[in-house]
Each structure stands twice: as structure tokens, then as C-alpha cells.
């Protein structure tokens, strides 16, 4: 294991480099507008004035890091969590759909994997469909799911969760099929010599052997769930959620708002993946599989 302290220097270096490049891009993308404004007012800008003018626009082409940071601070700390302008409020709306969809998708993925491993017909038939399902652009499918579910009286959390589940079941199926098939022939033969039943083989061998695979697929699935929830928020009229923030931001050219919503989404994904990583560590240690 690498010590945390050994990571500080390389990570800070990379972060600083990214911020530096970001500022340069912000300057070059925003300077056109600043120069046009100055020309319209009939003034010449010095280099310092131009730089300053690119750093503080209301609707910059590319929001600067400090603008995004200020917006994030303002919409998380300064607003009540119940306020429609609070990023925490919107984040929670998205997170709740993500979590529900993630749970549904994971369950579905595990059940399908169990079926694929134990049933010849499912083994031959399910995987092509699962792959095909992921080849359909979710952006095209999401509005239809929302509309169809709305017409049967379902709206709010569940339709978004369905889209999340639609994206997150796939990595779980693929990972868990590999996981359930990971025991070698000898481990299977061993249980055969005890005349073990198929359920016994599953509970005593396939399931525990699949644990490392489970957590890897859960991490991919969680990130996919979040994308699904955000995409699911786009066609609903953009009422609430990070997806709504993104859409409203793009309607009104609020690039700062878009960027802060993106950062909030990234933070949520990092949080989810981090929590799963923690669960992985604890579980594998308990099982004696972590050294």
C-alpha cells in the first residue's frame, strides 16, 4: 500500500497544473468578448486590464476556477438546503434517484448473472440483449421511459431510478458472470465429491468467490447510475436535480452554474465510489481475502 503522505506531492502538482491550464484557456476563450466590449466602448485595454476582464465575466465562455469555487461555496454553504437554489438540495434529488436506481440495477444485474450461470438458455440468450441494450443511446431512450412511466401514473423518483438502473445493471451482469465463473475446476470438483447441490455450490463457492468482482462492478455501476439519474432529469422539464441545473444553465448561458453542477456531480460520483471502496476493504478483510 502506498502511504497517503507520499501521494500529497504528486496529486497537488497535477491539480495545480490543471488549474493553471484552465486559467490559460479561460483567458484565451474569454478575451474575445472582453475585447469586443472594449472596442464598442472605444477604449484600449492594457494586458492587465484584459486579464482582469476575462476573469470576472457574468457569462464567460469558460468559467474560471475561482468563479466556480465561489458559486459552489455560495450554493452549498450560503443557501438553506431546502432552497431551490441550493446545490445540496439539487444534489440530494439526483443522489436519491441514483441510489434507488443503483440498488434496482445491482439486484437485476446479480439476478441475471445467477440465471446466466445456472441456465443454459439464459446463458445463450441474455448477454446479446444486455449488450444491445447498452448500444441504444440513453439520451434517446430516457424521454420515452419518462413519458411511458408518466402515462401509467409514475413520476418523480422512480422513472429516473429506472434510467439509472438501465445503465447500472450492465456492468454488474458482466462482472458477476465472471465472478460466479471464477472458481477453478478443482474447487468445483471438490464440492462435487461431496455431492453438493447447485444451491450449495452457489452459496459456498460461487458467491464468496465473486466478491472481488462484485465490488469492481459496483464501482462502475454507481458511476453509471449517476449519469443515468442526471440524464433522466433532462427531459422532465428540468424541475430539480443536477441535471436540471445543467439544463437551466445551458438555456440561459449560465456557464458558472453548469460548471458547478458538473463539479457537484463529480463529487457525488467520487463519494459513491469511495464508499463502495470502503465496503470492499471491510468485506474482503472480514473474509480473510485482503492481505
Amino acid at each position, binding site marked *: 500500500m502506498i502511504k497517503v503522505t507520499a501521494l500529497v506531492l504528486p496529486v497537488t502538482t497535477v491539480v495545480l497544473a490543471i488549474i493553471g491550464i484552465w486559467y490559460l484557456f479561460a483567458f484565451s476563450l474569454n478575451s474575445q468578448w472582453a475585447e469586443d466590449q472594449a472596442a464598442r466602448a472605444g477604449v484600449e485595454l492594457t494586458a492587465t486590464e484584459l486579464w482582469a476582464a476575462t476573469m470576472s465575466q457574468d457569462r464567460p465562455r469558460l468559467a474560471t476556477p475561482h468563479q466556480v469555487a465561489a458559486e459552489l461555496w455560495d450554493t452549498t454553504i450560503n443557501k438553506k438546503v431546502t432552497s431551490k437554489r441550493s446545490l445540496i438540495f439539487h444534489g440530494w434529488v439526483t443522489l436519491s434517484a441514483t441510489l434507488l436506481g443503483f440498488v434496482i440495477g445491482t439486484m437485476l444485474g446479480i439476478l441475471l448473472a445467477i440465471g446466466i450461470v445456472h441456465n443454459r438458455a439464459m446463458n445463450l440468450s441474455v448477454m446479446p440483449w444486455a449488450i444491445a441494450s447498452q448500444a441504444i443511446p440513453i439520451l434517446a431512450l430516457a424521454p420515452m421511459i419518462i413519458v411511458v412511466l408518466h402515462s401509467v401514473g409514475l413520476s418523480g423518483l422512480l422513472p429516473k431510478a429506472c434510467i439509472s438502473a438501465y445503465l447500472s445493471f450492465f456492468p454488474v451482469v458482466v462482472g458477476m458472470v465472471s465472478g460466479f465463473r471464477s472458481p477453478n475446476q478443482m474447487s468445483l*470438483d471438490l464440492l462435487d465429491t461431496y455431492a453438493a447441490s447447485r444451491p450449495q455450490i452457489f452459496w459456498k463457492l460461487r458467491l464468496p468467490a465473486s466478491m472481488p468482482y462484485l465490488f469492481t462492478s459496483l464501482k462502475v455501476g454507481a458511476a453509471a447510475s449517476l449519469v443515468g439519474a442526471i440524464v433522466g432529469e433532462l427531459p422532465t422539464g428540468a424541475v430539480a436535480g443536477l441535471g436540471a441545473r445543467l439544463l437551466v444553465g445551458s438555456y440561459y448561458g449560465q456557464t458558472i452554474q453548469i460548471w458547478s453542477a458538473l463539479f457537484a456531480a463529480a463529487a457525488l460520483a467520487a463519494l459513491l465510489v469511495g464508499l463502495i471502496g470502503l465496503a470492499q476493504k471491510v468485506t474482503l478483510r472480514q473474509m480473510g481475502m485482503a492481505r
Partner: protein
Amino acid sequence: MSEHAISAVDLGLEFPTRDGKIEALQQINLEVESGEFIALIGPSGCGKTTFLRIVAALEKPTSGVIRVNGLSPEEARKARSYGYVFQAAGLYPWRSIAANVRLPLEVMGFDRRERDDRVRHALDLVGLSGFEKQFPWQLSGGMQQRASIARALCFDADILLMDEPFGALDEIVRDHLNEQLLALWQKTGKTVGFVTHSIPEAVYLASRIVVMSPRPGRITAVIENDLPTERPLEIRDSSEFIAIAQKVRHALRAGGDAHD
């Protein structure tokens, strides 16, 4: 109903390949008395492991009859007639040593109290008391293999089938385990089928040595081992031991086909 622990009559197994049929086993006739220690020896490809796997119902023969305790291999499996020890220990890494030994007892539905007693007894037999809570990776290869023997012993099958169990271990550990296995066999009186490709190991352990040869896999000689049952490791330097080892070597040569 025969009283033999294992009896094979005209047993054969062939499987098709792209280059035609391969006869893994041909015309195997063998009767193993209850309480015997049989060593199956031969070059790779002679079918010794295949024969053991047929006894354990892990493979199906294509001709002939095989009986285990008078039952078909499948019936014998359900009657818990045999314990099988594989080439590698194959302990489940997520189970402690005690839990690994307990695995067959859980599958076979022993109740909790009896499980604990049997696990303790089996670990004691192989000299692993005190290692119950360790995980497999914390043990040496030899200790892992001993745990796998305990796992095969704990449900008291009267036949122990061992497929080159010590093949992957170094010679010092192997000597030690051979000595322990012999003591275990004398203590428990089980029937043992032991696959090996080591002549000294076969002569040291077995009461009868079955020599096999490949292409097609068949028995070429069965050699009685009349060494005393008490066998200290030093017996391997005695002239009697060397004489039997020579017999085995000659039988292997006569079987031919050892061009590897």
C-alpha cells in the same frame, strides 16, 4: 455385492479428438481390498489420475464396470464412501482452516456440535491443532495440504483417494508428510488410492503398487510390497526397499513409451 473397496472390470475410457480417438484407459482390471494402500504409478498420460477420477465419479467410463464399496461411483459418492485429495490443497481463501475442514460437513448437513468435534479431531489427526483460525495464505504449502487431507478425513469416508497430493511440495516436506500419511493410514485403517509419479514415494507408502503405461492407458504390472508395515524413513536405504523400487522401475521401463 462385492466386498472389495474398489473393483474395476474391463474398464475403459476413450474420448474423441481431432486426430481420432484417444484411449485414456483400456481394459483396466483391478480389485482393491478394504484397508489396502494402493499406489498408482506411471508416466504422465497413463491414465492414473483418470482412473482415480472415475472412482470418484468425476469422469464417466465409456466401457466396463466400476464398483466402489459394491456401489456405482455416483451411489458411493452419495453414501460418502470416499474423500478426495487433489494435487493442490485447493482451500477456499475466504475460509479459515477450521472452516475449510468444516466445508464437507456443512454440505452433508452434520449438526453444529458434531461438526465442531469432527473438525477438531481431523485437525488433530494431521497435526494442525491450534491453526483453526488462520487463513490458508498464512500457512505453508505443506500445512495447506495437511489441512486438505483433514478436510477429506473429517466425514469418515472409508476410502481416501489422493491425486499426487504432495507433487508440488519440496522433498523435505514431502518426506515428512509421507511419514505422517503412513501413520495416519495405520491408525485409521482406511483404504487409500494414491496417485504418484515418484517411485520411492510409491514403495515407501503402498502395500501394493499398480504400474501403468500410456497410449493407451493400461495396467502393465501389479507389484506386491512386502516391506514391514512399520516403515521408518530410513527403510528407504535398505536392500529390500531398493529391490522393490527396482522392480517398479523395470515395470515402468517395460511399459515403454517414456520418451519424455
